[in-house]
């Protein structure tokens, strides 16, 4: 009985705080994406025109933890298959947050274009038993300026 109560409490706490956090995070992401629209990102390795101005590495890194509710939800999902609803929003947040931090990093250096943008992801706990997982996303690219 004790185990069930612990489990339910953790799940409810996980859901309440997890969804509050997620909503707040998405609001902040939308806001900052608007303010950083001026910094453009490109996946091409080389700028279309010859460039001789300043170039610096721009990086953005973020680690987001899952909550107990997401963990259980994904655990159940692994039995029946299908889209892992619980992790989709988590990875989306991490990716957009990392890109935003990279853009902010570029802006801090006075740059407004980022070429050769790459994303790296890593799992912090690597599926270790009894651990709450966390996802890391690193965004990086070469920052250039439109007015060198």
């Amino acid at each position, binding site marked *: 009985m004790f185990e069930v109560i612990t489990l339910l409490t953790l799940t409810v706490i996980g859901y309440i705080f997890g*969804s509050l956090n997620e909503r707040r995070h998405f609001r902040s992401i939308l806001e900052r994406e608007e303010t950083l629209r001026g910094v453009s990102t490109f996946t091409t390795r080389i700028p279309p025109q010859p460039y001789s101005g300043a170039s610096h590495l721009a990086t953005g890194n973020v680690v987001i933890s899952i909550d107990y509710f*997401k963990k259980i939800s994904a655990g159940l*999902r692994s039995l*029946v298959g299908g889209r892992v*609803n619980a992790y989709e*929003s988590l990875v989306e947040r991490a990716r957009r947050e990392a890109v935003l931090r990279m853009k902010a990093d570029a802006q801090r250096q006075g740059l407004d274009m980022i070429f050769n943008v790459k994303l790296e992801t890593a799992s912090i706990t690597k599926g270790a038993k009894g651990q709450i997982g966390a996802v890391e996303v690193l965004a990086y690219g070469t920052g250039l300026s439109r007015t060198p």
Partner: protein
Amino acid sequence: MRYHNPKIPEGINISSTHPLADFAWMLTGIALGLLALVVSAHLLAAWLVPQLPFQFEQKILRTVEPVWEIQTKLASADEKKADYLQKLANRLAQQDTLPEGLVVKVHYINTPKINAFATLGGNILIHQGLLDNLHTENGLAMVIAHELGHLVHRDPLLATGRATVSLAAIALISGFSETRVAENLFSLSAQSLLLSFSRQQERRADQYALNLLNGYYGHTAGATEFFESVETLADNTRGYNQLLEFFDTHPNRGARMDTIAATISDPTAPLVPLPDFLSSTRR
């Protein structure tokens, strides 16, 4: 080359299902699937068990030998008591024609636990604590005859089969799922459901026991003695602790006692006292 900086529409990468709805659907589906699995296994077991010979039970027992050995090491410390119990069981068993292949073996275990139980291979285990709380042979005969009833009805094999299926289901769930959630949830229900015989099995064993008693003594007076002493003992802490295992495996003792008491037609019939050597010297 001209570049555009369009606004990307929201919600492309995320399912629109509400996380709680998603969770509820999965939980319901998995619970129903598991229930169907366990129910069909139970039905299958009920059909299969009576067809298996008693030699099969012996074979299963040998595979769980380590547990079994610990139990029997505690046993047979007192040949005289074991012998007495075995003889009483044999006399009771003679009131009915036992199914072919069933050889009843009674083991005496010198622990203060107040319990007795029937297990695979025709074995009955009786703890010293039980003997210390009975004063008539009629009361003890009722307990032994009840366990004989479990053996005749193949209840231990049925319980083992069901426990195995349910444990397999739990292992399946916890093996596939990365969390230990399912394991925690289901092991609890499995424990409470499977360690004990069902109420129906207990009732059937009681009925069987009353028939044996009636054949052996000519009446069923004294059949409720064990239940009566349990009620008295449960009032103090020490007695309660010794009874924990009994309570775990027998949740409906009140109703059972009433049913048994109702069938006693001759409550004043003379009872046979238990010999003195059965009581524990540590008393």
